[in-house]
């Protein structure tokens, strides 16, 4: 009994001083504003001191990508390698035993035996939480179905902090597929940890944010409004967070053709906005942003993508409980 109390006290101390150590990263909502500020400070360090480290040289990081990914996978791999960790893993279900009918649970048990940190992306919502319940090693959710993409939200918020100095007090417009897009949902969840002045949820009625997302906004008292067109609010917003609207989501292709123009971000549209208006996008983008925007002052999405590496480096060392 005495032994157990000591372990509990010990765990509480670790939580207090190293809030990230050994922690699963399933949803951005599991974190506090203070947690994220701590993360951002470490990310600042790695952004300024871009080099190789040996901080995680005894670590194996497993990248279990049951769904294809370029950016997230490569930035995790780069982050892990720059920290000196060994990286193992696979992408998509093809060619590995999952395609032969192995359960996710069994795959995770195997990875848990090999790796110290497991990064997982899966098509099913809740897969990362389920993996975390099975694995002893910390699990990082790199996207579970339409639900969460917490590390994307971390780097999105970090980008805004870099651009504006603060995440609070700004007006946000989140555009696109708010129903099925996990990056958009996670970004909205992430904003609820801060004090945005207002959040506009801009989407066709068919692709409105899911009830559970709206529930969190209401519960946390974030001023928000659902609107249908970008040009209704473009003058008012400081940040436009744009995501892709997929054609496949519409039961009727004609309906898609009718609405798609309302969500295309053009220079013309952005010129109507504030001087400091910036456009973020989790990428990949297809035709939702006019190519001319890419080289304009409005485009912040390439910088945003670049921040993926320092933010993920920061997250990995915090979970491992080591300092640069």
């Amino acid at each position: 009994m005495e032994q157990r109390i000591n372990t509990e006290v010990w765990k509480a101390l670790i939580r207090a001083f190293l809030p990230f150590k050994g922690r699963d990263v399933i949803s951005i909502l599991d974190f506090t504003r203070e947690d994220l500020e701590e993360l951002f400070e470490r990310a600042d360090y790695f952004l300024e001191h871009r080099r190789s480290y040996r901080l995680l040289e005894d670590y194996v990081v497993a990248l279990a990508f049951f769904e294809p990914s370029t950016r997230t996978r490569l930035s995790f791999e780069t982050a892990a390698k720059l920290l000196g960790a060994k990286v193992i893993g696979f992408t998509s279900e093809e060619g590995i035993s999952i395609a032969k009918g192995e359960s996710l649970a069994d795959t995770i048990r195997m990875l848990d035996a090999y790796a110290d940190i497991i990064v997982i992306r899966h098509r099913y919502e809740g897969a990362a939480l389920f993996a975390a319940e099975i694995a002893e090693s910390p699990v990082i959710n790199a996207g579970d179905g339409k639900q969460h993409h917490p590390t994307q939200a971390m780097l999105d918020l970090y980008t805004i902090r870099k651009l504006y100095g603060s995440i609070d007090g700004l007006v946000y417009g989140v555009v696109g597929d708010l129903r099925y897009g996990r990056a958009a949902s996670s970004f909205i969840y992430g904003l609820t940890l801060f004090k945005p002045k207002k959040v506009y949820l801009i989407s066709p009625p068919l692709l409105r944010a899911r009830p559970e997302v709206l529930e969190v906004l209401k519960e946390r008292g974030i001023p928000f409004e659902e609107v249908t067109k970008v040009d209704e609010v473009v003058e008012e917003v400081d940040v436009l967070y744009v995501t892709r609207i997929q054609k496949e989501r519409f039961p009727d292709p004609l309906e898609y053709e009718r609405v798609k123009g309302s969500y295309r971000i053009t220079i013309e549209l952005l010129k109507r906005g504030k001087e400091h208006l910036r456009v973020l996008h989790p990428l990949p983008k297809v035709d939702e942003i006019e190519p001319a925007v890419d080289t304009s002052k409005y485009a912040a999405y390439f910088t945003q993508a670049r921040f993926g590496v320092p933010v993920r480096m920061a997250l990995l060392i915090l979970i491992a409980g080591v300092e640069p």
Partner: protein
Amino acid sequence: MNPQTASLTVSKIRNGTVIDHIPAGKALLVLRILGITGKEGFRTAVLMNVESKKLGKKDIIKIEERELTSDEVNVIALVAPSATINIIREYNVYKKLRVQIPQIIRGFIKCPNPTCITNRGREALKARFKVIKRQPLLLQCVYCGTIISQEDLEKQLVM
């Protein structure tokens, strides 16, 4: 017909459970939640739309030779939060229980989201719901975040 005459129509049970103060019309749902189909062989009385001082109208279920466990009792709360449970032994009330909505509900509700990990057949995993609101009832899938209402839940139970 007053409550006295209603109670006269069904004789007292010797051993078993009486579920009283079920909202009118919900008795069959309660039976379904408990998995009682009639094939188990217990002598069961279902009274529906009986006058009640507390509820106006209510349903009552009497099940002979079956004592409900507290887990079963709490699950009833999802469709009949006003229900009271009397465990009967030798014609007397041995124990009175009030139903209480548990904080987490395991097992018997399926997540309606087809791409929830709990619906991936290969996994040995049962759905788990967190009660986020009691009045009106709102449940949230712990895994995929899907919110279901009382109505969704009852629809699922009827199917």
